[in-house]
């Protein structure tokens, strides 16, 4: 019985959230006195595969053929399940990314595994029960889920566990040739469009978010400038994305994205219960709002009661001075 971690690549490289998944899977392997194997699918540079050893994988199975070069949900699920069986892995870990969310459930069904989506802590094994904590009610609560099945699939939330290096792990890279299942390729990827200069919101460590207080989309320049200086992702409240001032992908809240950054800066957002749900896991919350009664101040760690159009430019100047 071992642990398998799926390492998702983006343009041939691994992101921090993937190293987090490997670190997490390594910790589980140690809990179970067993080994960690990684499975990589697609065209990934050898140096990237070797680097996985730093986070505790002792072996990586590399699948690289023309058909599987880019993400194909159905096919990748088959490959991962096949690798799990080949490695006798009863625990499969992956990052709860957009692709992971479509992949994990299919792997779980193939392996008849109990599945925890959005884990935020290591599993706890107590009294013969295997439980994992995850978020629930769109960030308003946590659920402790027990996996009763022998096989387990866990999708780890980004920025929940952290990257942990494992002292001197030698890693062996092996080619893995999965069975060819033609019916797995009914969905055909035509195009992948990725803006490489922006920080992706679900993974972001720092988020700069703004709401109706900014009065119009033409005023977002300072939000983007602040975000750029902080290496942050930009986000917005629901009314802002509903009004098409910002894209839906920036909408944070109960019916948008849930984020868990180290720092969440909210500018001109009042703090409705639905928005707060989406940011409840943020480690530090900063609120800038001219209304001292804004509900957001009740959950903020730091706050400035003031006009965003005065405060934000001052923050930008102060940040430039701090960096300079």
């Amino acid at each position, binding site marked *: 019985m071992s642990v398998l971690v799926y390492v998702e690549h983006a343009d041939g490289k691994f992101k921090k959230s993937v190293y987090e998944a490997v670190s997490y899977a390594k910790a589980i392997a140690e809990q179970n006195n067993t080994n960690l194997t990684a499975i990589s699918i697609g065209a990934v540079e050898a140096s990237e595969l070797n680097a996985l050893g730093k986070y505790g994988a002792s072996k990586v199975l590399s699948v690289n053929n023309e058909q599987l070069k880019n993400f194909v949900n159905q096919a990748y699920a088959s490959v991962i399940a096949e690798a799990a069986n080949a490695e006798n892995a009863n625990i499969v870990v992956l990052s709860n990314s957009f692709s992971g969310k479509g992949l994990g459930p299919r792997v779980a069904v193939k392996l008849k595994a109990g599945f925890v*989506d959005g884990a935020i802590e290591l599993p706890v094994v107590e009294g013969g029960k295997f439980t994992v904590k995850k978020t629930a009610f769109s960030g308003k609560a946590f659920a402790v889920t027990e996996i009763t099945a022998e096989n387990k699939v866990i999708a780890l939330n980004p920025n929940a566990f952290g990257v942990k290096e494992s002292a001197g792990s030698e890693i062996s890279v092996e080619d893995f040739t999965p069975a060819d299942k033609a019916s797995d390729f009914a969905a055909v990827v035509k195009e992948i469009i990725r803006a490489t200069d922006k920080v992706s919101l679900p993974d972001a460590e720092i988020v700069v978010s703004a709401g109706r207080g900014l009065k119009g989309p033409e005023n977002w320049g300072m939000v983007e400038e602040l975000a750029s200086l902080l290496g942050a992702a930009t986000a917005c409240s629901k009314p802002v994305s509903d009004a098409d001032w910002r894209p839906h992908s920036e909408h944070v809240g109960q019916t948008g994205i849930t984020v868990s950054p180290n720092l969440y800066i909210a500018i001109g957002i009042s703090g409705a219960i639905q928005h707060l749900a989406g940011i409840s896991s943020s480690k530090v919350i900063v609120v800038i709002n001219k209304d001292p009664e804004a509900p957001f101040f009740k959950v903020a760690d730091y706050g400035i009661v003031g006009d965003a159009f005065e405060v934000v430019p001052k923050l930008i100047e102060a940040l430039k001075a701090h960096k300079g």
Partner: protein
Amino acid sequence: MKILVCISNVPDTTTKITFTNDNTQFNTAGVQYIVNPYDEIALSKAISLCEGGKGSVTVINVGESSTEPTVRKALAIGADDAVRVNAAPRDAYFTAFQIAEYAKSNDFDMILTGRESIDYNGAQVAAMIGEFLDIPSVSIIKKLDYDGTTATIEREIEGGKEILTVTGKFVASCAEGVAEPKIPNMRGIMSARTKPLHVVEAKEVEQLSTIQSFQTPPPRGTVKLVPTEETEKLIDLLHQEAKVI
């Protein structure tokens, strides 16, 4: 064309979430229930695709009889008929299994769901249905165009999107932007009462996971206010005290 839309009965978004029974159960006292907002988007899309006699939309819900008002709401929005699988939705695996079993004996061109339910946020059901039926599933889609045989779909990825095509049956889970949620009109509300709502029994399947308990997030401390004249101090606090920049 026949489209199956999966709808979930969830607490409305203003609900203050609390737990009972030693934190093992969600406290339903006084809670208003709604159609899961993402499922409304999926339903609205299905209705648009079938408009003008192009097809029919069936909604399916896995739930006990208490979900029927929510199912009727889906009929009011514009679904043609509804099915309720008579069982509490234990977990995503159970729910997806029931829906897949229903879909196996009823021919659908596509199955649409919302990206996740706002109570358990699993985002699992669509992909699991796809796996049970051995058909493609596309999760968290932003756009869907359908010409009768091929679907062109945009799904969200970190920092962008992926465009793919599927010919044949598929399952897709819908995110914001796929369709504007339709508001039930008077005619819809009236006809919802008489549109068919079939109840079917659930099928046995093993239980692979269960929720043991819930926790509410720890309360946060009081805010440290920084006067506007001292705005630049915030940067120092974030760097030295909070250590987040």
